[in-house]
């Protein structure tokens, strides 16, 4: 795999009044990587992610996503990324098939592509029987898997996942990560925030944010070595226990 950066930031900062939500973030994410973005509640993860997706205007610093500038080329970025927010973002009052069709449609897929994608997704998620069921009637785990699949319905270069497995049972979490690996194997770069440290172990590299700054960034193995920890839990605890922010 070629070592190309699909995300690159330099001193990226977001201030809300006097509050510095994200302070001079500098990092890069390589193509095809599964990049874990960890941090306690209120550490600034979601803020950073929203800046990269073009949902939030940065206060200062530079950033490139999928080869486009986060200030001036937001629409180009949006064509090349997928996003799954913390809040569940499918339409509850539409069926599984209608949701796929809608998001495929607004990403500009052709009728044929939509039909092919729909069949593919329904098979992959084993939702063929539920195609005509309203999304509101699906269990949470299924919804999350569906939301992920729809977030990459247009084959983006990068997909941003904001705590995608919150509130989901361990078995479904495991299945969810299978989907992530599957997408990663097709060359989609994964940028994921999570609270679950076992999930951090699945990532190629992780960054840990504390109070708006990146406190550590390396592969899980290197981080454990560096902090003399047995698992990511301990690494996280060592870094985050001094955090002053929280909910």
């Amino acid at each position, binding site marked *: 795999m070629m070592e190309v950066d699909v995300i690159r930031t330099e001193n990226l900062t977001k201030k809300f009044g006097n509050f510095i939500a994200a302070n001079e973030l500098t990092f890069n994410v390589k193509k095809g990587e599964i990049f874990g973005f960890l941090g306690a509640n209120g550490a600034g993860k979601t803020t950073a992610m929203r800046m990269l997706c073009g949902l939030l205007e940065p206060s200062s610093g530079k950033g490139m996503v999928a080869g486009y500038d986060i200030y001036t080329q*937001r629409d180009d970025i949006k064509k090349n990324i997928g996003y799954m927010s913390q809040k569940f973002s499918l339409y509850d*009052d539409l069926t599984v098939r209608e949701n796929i069709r809608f998001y495929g449609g607004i990403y500009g897929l052709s009728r044929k592509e939509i039909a092919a994608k729909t069949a593919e997704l329904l098979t992959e998620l084993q939702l063929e029987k539920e195609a005509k069921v309203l999304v509101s009637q699906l269990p949470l785990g299924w919804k999350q898997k569906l939301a992920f699949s729809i977030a990459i319905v247009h084959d983006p270069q990068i997909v941003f996942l904001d705590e995608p497995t919150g509130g989901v049972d361990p078995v479904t979490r495991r299945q969810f990560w299978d989907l992530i690996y599957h997408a990663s194997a097709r060359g989609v770069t994964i940028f994921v925030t999570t609270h679950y440290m076992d999930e951090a172990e699945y990532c190629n590299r992780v960054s840990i944010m504390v109070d708006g700054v990146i406190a550590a960034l390396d592969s899980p193995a290197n981080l454990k070595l560096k902090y003399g920890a047995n698992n990511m839990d301990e690494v996280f605890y060592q870094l985050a226990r001094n955090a002053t922010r929280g909910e």
Partner: protein
Amino acid sequence: MRILYYLLEKEFLQILRNKSILRMLIIAPIIQLILMPLAADFSVKNISIAVVDHDHSTVSRQLIKKITASGHFKLTGYKDSYLDGLSMVENDKADLLIEIPIGFERNLVRENSQKLFITINAIEGTKANLGGGYLQNIIRDYNSELRMKWIPPNSGPNRGQVISIASTNWYNPYMNYHLFIVPGILVSLLTAMSSMQAAFNIVQEKEQGTIEQINVTPIKKYIFILGKLLPFLVLSVIVFTLGLIVSKVFYNIWPVGNFGILYVSLIIYLFAMLGMGLLISTYSETQQQAMSLSFFFTMIFNMMSGMFTSLDSMPNWAKIVANLFPPSHFIKIMRMVVMKGSDYSDISSHLFWMFGIGLFLTTWAVLNYRKTIN
């Protein structure tokens, strides 16, 4: 354009699937249109009247008969003393009290003049005013009847000169109050449904978080806005058409004027009102906020757009304010086209105003609608 198609498809699917929205949009306005004009009728009937007759003469009895025969009044008491009659007013059993003095007939014949006393309960202003007015008319009529009867036919030029006024009511010959109020109520229902529902719909996506998912797609802001507003334009046109049918069926009101003019005006009006809905949605994070804002404006619109009362009787500055409300113009247009059959040249200034306000509101809303937060 294909993207717009998918947006519209999704909106219609959601609206058609949501039974409560459909009920709100279609059935509620029709019921309101059937019921509300009955209450908003300013021609006064059933005024309770109490009579204190001290005279008990032919003339006094004839007068009472004439009053009750007019259809506006119903006799609720026939008392012997003024105090008894007044207690009826105090207990809300009578709106009007008429006292016929002793010797009424005799004095009328002998001295050619007599006084009547009317006591009016003025708590309900309109009723009292109109009631008093009706009563005076009846008495005046009766008065001239009497004079005609008693003055000998050949008594020369002095034979009680009377100027009689013959008035014709143009465009509403029978002064049918429904003809005035039904088009106005139809506009107010349309106002509530178009701008409020559009605002709620957009804010609902904010509440559910789906708007964020839309905002990370490359979809153009104006296409998203069109996708949101067009369904409500279509629904409003349907409600308006149903409203016209209800007006015909229940009140036998059918526009005298051209339907093309009516619908062109309707579209311009909806352009302004949907612009307002969009603007409200950009300032609201929750449906509750949108509800409060819409409610504030709809209340003002209902009271200040000339639906019930004439705008011309307001002070000048208030007239200028009312001119800035799209419903004021559309209600005018509706009445002109429905009752008079007015043409484009008659309503052009109103169309111009509505379009201008619409352009202003929509531009403001579009500028304020952001896919990216600062």
